[in-house]
């Protein structure tokens, strides 16, 4: 169940990044509200995941996979380049998460 909570928390953290970008320094009320609501949901689900994960482990996976998600969405929907440098970073995050799992640390 903790992986499920963490996965949904990642989705809402990606929403936070998108909404915060559109909020333009929190000058636009609707996007500011969307940022805070998404952040609240992401935080609650992260707290449920952290009932099982170590704080450092769960937090690192959450923030990093969300970071990967933001870049991938940018490439899919906003026409941003996905060059070898970014792919290398994405591969490192995936290798790290799989490594944690295989080493029995999570």
């Amino acid at each position, binding site marked *: 169940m903790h992986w499920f909570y963490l996965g949904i928390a990642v989705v809402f953290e990606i929403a936070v990044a998108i909404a915060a970008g559109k909020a333009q*320094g*929190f000058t636009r009320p609707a996007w500011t509200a969307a940022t805070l609501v998404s952040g*609240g949901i992401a935080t609650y689900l*992260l707290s449920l995941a952290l009932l099982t994960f170590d*704080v450092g*482990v769960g*937090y*690192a996976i959450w923030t990093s996979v969300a970071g990967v998600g933001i870049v991938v969405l940018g490439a899919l929907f906003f026409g941003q380049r996905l060059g070898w440098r970014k792919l290398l*970073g994405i591969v490192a995050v995936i290798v*790290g998460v799989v490594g944690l799992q295989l080493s029995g640390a999570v």
Partner: protein
Amino acid sequence: MSSETATAHSDRARAWLVLLLAGAFEVGYALAVGGSQGFTVLSWSLVAVVFFLLTLFALSLALRTIDVGIGYAVWAGIGAVGAALLGPVFFGETLTPAKALWLTVIIAGVVWLKLSDSLERRQTERPARP
């Protein structure tokens, strides 16, 4: 140095200070969310809410001056490294060599990813600039 560049320099220095502060708030946020035990412990839950607002506010302030990719890389890096190192201090968790190794790979990966994002954006934008 003209007074204009001096002002720009002190603006940048202040933005970087605010960014480092945002990173510290993010560490506090991560620890408090963990300590809240699924938001059943009132004290940690309140601390988590305060740090959540502080980290968002400080990051958005810093990103007015600092490039978003670089800012996000530094902020996320500080948050993740801080949470990994301080989690064992606060919650009696153990940071085994295997955990430390894979956490390093993950955190280096996301920091590298955000720095690359910033670099590739600037390369794409460059021709448009005078």
